């Protein structure tokens, strides 16, 4: 029995991991700037899913061409960014100014999460679809251009999603290093007082970080809409745990590590769990008589397990690990 999962499954897993990576990256960014762990982050991503669904229903229903993959993420990202900025400027910042503690702000993000989740659900239930009769739970996996390689038919979102993640990561990196506002953002993250003394509008930097974070989430959400059986904002409740796991594994101190952490956790959940399941079946069930149960359902244990391991052994996440020293200790490098 094969230990490695199948080709399509692997593609799906990579796409899922890329989406989690984008979400973890945004979560890490706003944590680094404003120190708020945002529990509404995954639901903000769902705004992207909802936008994608409406685009398919109203515009691309008959001809889901490649422009869908441009319009969906872009509009979904912008909508999510708009909400994210609204959330920061109109809700979190005033609450912080009123003297709420970090726990108070976390509760506030939970409150926003509930409000947003229920509003999105309400919209999908109440706004009639033009072509798709019932929007809530609508399976839209078919509405995408197909890629055929020989006998393989590939869901094109699985190619677009990792690509989008790569493009956005590079674009964000260029923004952070090549534009003076990006440099100011890094400076503000490191030392807001000094940055402000240099004339940086710190509160604008914070606002922009929420916009970027929301945009990344919206893009991930728009493309991820294809991955689930039907569009239902409630899946954000499942995803947010993985996103936090990714951010914590990354260390909540670097957007790049956030992206990578999310990617690792996403892959571990999908491919890791499948491999463990296959090994279990091939070895423990077949030869040692263990009960024949599926371990695939336990994918969330994987993310929690990683979080626990990281918090116990590398409390500052992968970003905090001294890789050079680790390499020399393992004999990979002379040092």
């Amino acid at each position, binding site marked *: 029995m094969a230990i490695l999962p199948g080709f399509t499954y692997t593609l799906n897993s990579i796409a899922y991991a890329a989406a989690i990576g984008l979400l973890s990256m945004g979560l890490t960014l706003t944590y680094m700037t404003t120190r708020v762990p945002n529990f509404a982050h995954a639901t903000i991503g769902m705004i992207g899913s909802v936008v994608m669904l409406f685009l398919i229903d109203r515009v691309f229903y008959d001809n889901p061409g490649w422009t869908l993959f441009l319009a969906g993420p872009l509009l979904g990202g912008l909508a999510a960014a708009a909400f994210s900025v609204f959330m920061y400027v109109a809700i979190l910042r005033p609450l912080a100014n009123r003297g709420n503690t970090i726990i108070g702000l976390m509760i506030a993000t939970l409150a926003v999460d509930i409000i947003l989740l229920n509003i999105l659900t309400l919209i999908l239930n*109440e706004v009639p679809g033009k072509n798709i009769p019932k929007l809530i739970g609508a399976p839209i996996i078919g509405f995408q251009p197909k890629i055929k390689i020989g006998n393989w038919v590939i869901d094109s979102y699985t190619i677009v999603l990792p690509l989008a993640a790569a493009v956005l990561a590079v674009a964000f990196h260029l923004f952070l290093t090549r534009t003076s506002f990006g440099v100011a953002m890094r400076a503000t993250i490191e030392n807001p007082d000094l940055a402000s003394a240099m004339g940086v509008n710190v509160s604008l930097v914070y606002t922009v970080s929420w916009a970027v974070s929301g945009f990344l989430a919206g893009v991930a959400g728009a493309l991820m809409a294809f991955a689930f059986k039907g569009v239902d904002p409630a899946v954000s409740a499942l995803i947010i*745990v993985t996103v936090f796991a990714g951010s914590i594994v990354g260390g909540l101190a670097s957007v790049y590590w956030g992206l990578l952490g999310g990617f690792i956790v996403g892959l571990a959940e999908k491919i890791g769990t499948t491999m463990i399941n296959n090994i279990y079946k091939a070895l423990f069930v077949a030869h040692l008589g263990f009960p024949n149960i599926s371990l695939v359902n336990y994918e969330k244990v994987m993310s929690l397990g990683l979080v626990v391991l990281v918090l116990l052994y590398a409390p500052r996440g992968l970003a905090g690990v001294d890789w050079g020293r680790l390499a020399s200790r393992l004999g990979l490098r002379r040092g």
Partner: protein
Amino acid sequence: MVDWWIFSDSFLVTLLVYVTVALSLNLEAGFTGIPNFGKHLFVFLGAFAAQGIGVRIAAWVYEKLRPEEAAQALTDVSRLVPGASKWTSLVQAAADTDANRIIVNSYLKPFITSNLAVEVLLAVVILAVTVALAMLFGLIASYAALRLREDYLAILLLSFGELMVMVIFYQTESLSGGNKGLWAITFTREPIRFALIGSAILAVIAFLYAERIANSPMGRTMRAVRDDEVAASVFGRDIALIRLKVIMAASVLAALAGFFYTESNASATARTFNRVIWTFLPWAMIILGGMANNKGAIVGAVAFLIGKRLFEYYQEPIGQALHIQAELVGSLLPNILIGVFILVILYLRPQGILPESISKTVDFRRLLEEEARRER
């Protein structure tokens, strides 16, 4: 006018259960500063004891005491439920989502209510299981609480609660019935009365307990740990031990509340124990009432639930006015309003409505006067 019946027995149980959960969360979050964002798990433990574990214990006792009847039950249920050949014992069948309903309602309940000794004993055992589960999971949660900063701890507890409920209990049918849930073992011929009386006693105990502890040296120590861990440890307190004790005590209260809640519904499904209604709502209640204020927690619980109930009651007219489906008014709008309400409270009173008061371990004023007299 509101019809009195909307405050039915089952609503009252819900109210009392929430009072207990809010008081329990207040002990952790309000007094000790432990940001338990995974409260739903601890409430669910009581439900799990009543259904997943309860039916197994009851079926086992049934098989031991009335082997012929139990064998008959297994045969009967195998005829009624397709694909039943896989069960080798009634214990297995009783925890199956399809057979569970028949076995619990047609066999186990009549058996339990016919024998007072069995009934009392079973109730005691299931309550003991509830307490044991709560303490076990409390121990695990407090292990994390020893090492993590409060925001990381909150994230971890939320993930922990979410994952435990979602994975261990919800995705795995054999434990607690998965999506369909399981019927619970209930007691007396009027289970709702049992639940009402039980949850009322529990709520009273929880209040008296929380008040006594708050006004004892322990309450003062909990608040000190919350305000400054380092200073508290420099003054001789083992922070880890204090948190452990508090989480244990609070978890037992929450799990017992979950038990009586399940008793009033006669069944439970893991997915309904989500973080919105069993973590966020209790947080909303204690924030409304003022953290570290037991009376406030009760006021918060009562205010929220009555508001929510009225909303459900008026869902038809509200739905017509807003042009949305009535059932969405009942299920979605209250959540939205609770969210908005919380934001408003956080904005208006970051410290809650009722402020924290000085503890009354002893009569400070009298001692002050006595000391002043002595000095003169």
